[in-house]
Structures are given as C-alpha cells and as structure tokens.
C-alpha cells in the first residue's frame, strides 16, 4: 500500500515510473514530484504499468499536472495504464482531455 516513484531523465524529457497504489495517502507526494518534473522538463511521460490501484485522488493529481503543463507550455502524457486504472479516466471523461497512450512502445 505504497507508491514507488522513480524518474529517468533523457535529454530534456523525463519518464516517471510509478509502482504501487495512488490514493489519498500517496497522492500528495506524487503531485509534488510530478509538478516539479513538469516545470523542469520539456516533456514528461508517466509510466503507469506497475500502478495496480488508483482512485479520484490520482485523477486530481493528473488534472493538476495537465493544468501546470498547459501553463508552462510543456508536454505531459500517461502511458501503459492497466485496464482498471484506465477505466476511471474513461468513466469520468478525462481520457478526452489528458494525453493517454496505452500501447507499450518498443525499443526501450
């Protein structure tokens, strides 16, 4: 019941790899980390492959991230979401506003 946050820098873009659960307990730390990363990088991808649980607190974090990325003119996207996590974006309609890429890109 924790969230592991790990970022990999690659030039002026960054990949944030998350592993664990995003809820009211873990979201504040994720939010701080993610918003800083967006300020500092041109592009941030959040790899959600190892996130097996998320609720609306996670949606809140990504809404903030989207707002920040628009303000500072940066790119922010979510990749590799598990079905149960993607479903929440779908139900709430947030998949229409947040850039989500669900296929694993080759050549990592």
């Amino acid at each position, binding site marked *: 019941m924790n969230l592991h946050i790990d970022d990999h820098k690659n030039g002026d873009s960054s990949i944030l790899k998350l592993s664990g659960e995003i809820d*009211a307990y873990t979201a504040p730390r994720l939010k701080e980390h993610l918003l800083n990363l967006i300020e500092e990088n041109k592009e941030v991808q959040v790899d959600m492959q190892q996130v097996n649980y998320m609720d609306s607190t996670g949606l809140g974090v990504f809404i903030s991230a989207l707002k920040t990325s628009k303000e500072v003119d940066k790119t922010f996207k979510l990749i590799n979401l598990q079905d149960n996590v993607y479903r*929440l974006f779908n139900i709430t309609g947030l998949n229409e506003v947040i850039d989500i890429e669900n296929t694993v890109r080759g050549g990592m």
Partner: protein
Amino acid sequence: MNEPFDFIEMKVPAKSDYVGVARLTASGLANRMGFSYEEIEDLKVAISEAITNTVKHAYTEEGAGEVTVGFGLYEDRMEVMIADYGGSFNLKSIKENIGPYNEDIPISNMKEGGFGLFLIDALMDKVEITNNNGVIVLMTKYLFENEVGRSDDQVSTTQ
C-alpha cells in the same frame, strides 16, 4: 424480514494512512463472497472514495476523529456503510434514517476531490447518503453469480 447476513465492522483513525487498510479488508471480503475481479476493483475504489471524503471533509484537523466502516455480507449483495463519527453502527436505525441521494450536499465541498462521489455512484449499484449526526454513506453492490459477462464488457456480434 429476517434476512441472514454477516456483519463486520472496523474503526480506523480519520487519516489517509488507513484508507488502504479499509480497502484491503473490502477486497478480502468481496473475494470471499465471490465477486469478480472487476467488481472487487469497483468496490475498492468506491470505499476508498467514501473514506477519503470523510477524512478530508468531516474533520477540520486531520486525524481528529475516527471513521467507522461496516460491511454487511448478504446472500446476494454487499452493503458498505461509512460513517464519520466515532460511535458504533446500529445497523437497523441507520438504515431507517437513510434516504435517496441528497442533492443538497454542496458540490463545492467535493470540488478538489470532485470525482469521488461521481465514481461511487458510477461503480456501485445503489448509494444512499444521510446527513444528520454526521455523514453516513450506505452503498450496495449486488452479486450476479450466474451472469456470464457484464453488459459494458460485451462485444457486439451483430453483422
């Protein structure tokens, strides 16, 4: 009407630290009842949302109170109650006091976690909220044992 059911009650400090513990309990109970993987995920999210709301809104100072979570396990459904006051549940009187979802609850209260209540409503089969003497959320998820697939998962085969 004496419908048999098992009742499990837990009380945790109103801190975000314990949302995961309640969620894990819900998952274990739902698994035992035979809910599907997707339904268990729905229950976990709905229960976490309700507790998170309580932790955020019921107490001005985080950790100042307790959240009581009650699980009623019936033959055909799970009923989950989440109350923001410290006292134990009196199942019968609580159920008598609960009406349909009350639209008077200000949306502004839910703003920053704005999708919480929406998700509870979307993921559970029935949701009732009562608001005197602390907020109580009662939500129900039915067990459809013989259903092969859920309608939203079905692929249309009409040609």
